[in-house]
């Protein structure tokens, strides 16, 4: 599974960073950055799914 943030949707709520700090970090402009390029390690997939679900703007895309 890969993760992408749609920067045009992100408004810096930071729910993803809280749910999965290994994967997401808010940048200086408050837009979420994905820290892991390419496929996520299996053990992080559940956290990525939680972040996807929690994002108020639904700015996170999970690519199987």
């Amino acid at each position, binding site marked *: 599974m890969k993760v992408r943030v749609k920067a*045009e*949707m992100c*408004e*810096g*709520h*930071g729910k993803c960073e809280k749910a999965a700090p290994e994967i997401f970090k808010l940048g200086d402009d*408050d837009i979420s950055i994905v820290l892991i390029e390419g496929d996520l390690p299996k053990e992080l997939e559940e956290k990525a799914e939680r972040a996807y*679900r*929690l994002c*108020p*703007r*639904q700015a996170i895309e999970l690519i199987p």
Partner: protein
Amino acid sequence: MTAPAIEPSDINLNNPEHFQREEFHELLRILRHRDPVHWNPPGEVSNGFWSITKYEDILFISRRPEIFISSKGIAGPGIKPEKLAELDFAAQQQNAGGNASIITMDPPRHVKMRRLVNKGFTPRAVNAMEPEIRRVTNEILDRIAHKGECDFVLEVASQLPLAVICGMMGVEQKDWPLMFELTNKVLGSGDPEYQTDIPEEERGTGQAARLTAMKGLQTMLEYFRGVLEDRRQNPRENDLPTILLEAEVDGEKLTEGDILQFCFLLIVAGNETTRNAISGGLQVLCQHPDQKRALIEDPSLMDTAIEEILRWTSPLHHMARTATEDVELRGKQIRAGDRVLMWYPSANRDEDVFPDPYRFDIRRTPNDHLAFGIGEHFCLGAGFARKELKVMFEELFRRFPDIEVVGPPERLRSTFINGIKHMPVQFTPER
């Protein structure tokens, strides 16, 4: 003897009485358990609509803004097309769903318009405003401090969100009462208390509501026409009207109509909903004295308490969408063109998501409520709402820890806004 059981087919959620009398939680519970995708038949004037009452189904719809669109109207079922011609111009205007504010806009234009202003609403921007919000809160509390009693809605809850949004919009303080009055006309249009332009014997009808909303809208647009005229000559820093006047989308300036609708939306959305969360929050805390005491003794509970207040009060009863294609949901066939109403207080009491959902619990974690909606149209002002609630309750309980609601709150007659119009409180005055 027990009352006869209510069947889903008996339930008409287009009746504002159910909401004014607070019967709606029970009706929503019946629908959620027995007919979670429920067809509400048309009324004499209004369209039929689907009532969506499960959390997961509201997520499903909110995640598909291209299929479930906002541009045909976001509040209520709308008026039957064949009735439009019989009603006057005002009603037709209202049914058109407004021409161009972001709340009634669909992808892809919605995001582009929203991005013109959303930098002013991020958590970072909200945190930067916190000292100012605290200063304004204490000014408001100073005005009641010696009185020992007041109408909490008029004198406290309404004043903070009004000051914050009017400040961001550069509305002069002398005009804040007018913004309050016009907001009530637009969002409380179905309540006779605000139908002051209608002869008394005609108040309370659907037509009175439509005319009242239209009058509030027109007066506010007229007001902001004056503001824009001023800002063209005297642009200001950090001023939303100035930002909108200078902004471009797809290489084009916004039309005056677009900007006026934007200003109108920011004012009404910015002051009505947070007002009701503050009032409803104090009400529910006073109904649970043990939890109120726990919060006063341990202010570190404030963040989870605010989320629980938001879940509990769900300041908007619903948002409406219109399907653009046929969609099957829980075995029901939603047709292209059908209106769907997403009932947030029901999602926020969905047993599949919230354990023991009818228990108010200021420590509830997790608390992924949908009080602000979710997705494309997630409340732009959510950060301000949370901050205003937090600062208000911190300062209110610091200064007036024994504040109590001392009479029944007067509720708004509306299927859309979970409003409280008046709520008497008493407290030990400051010396």
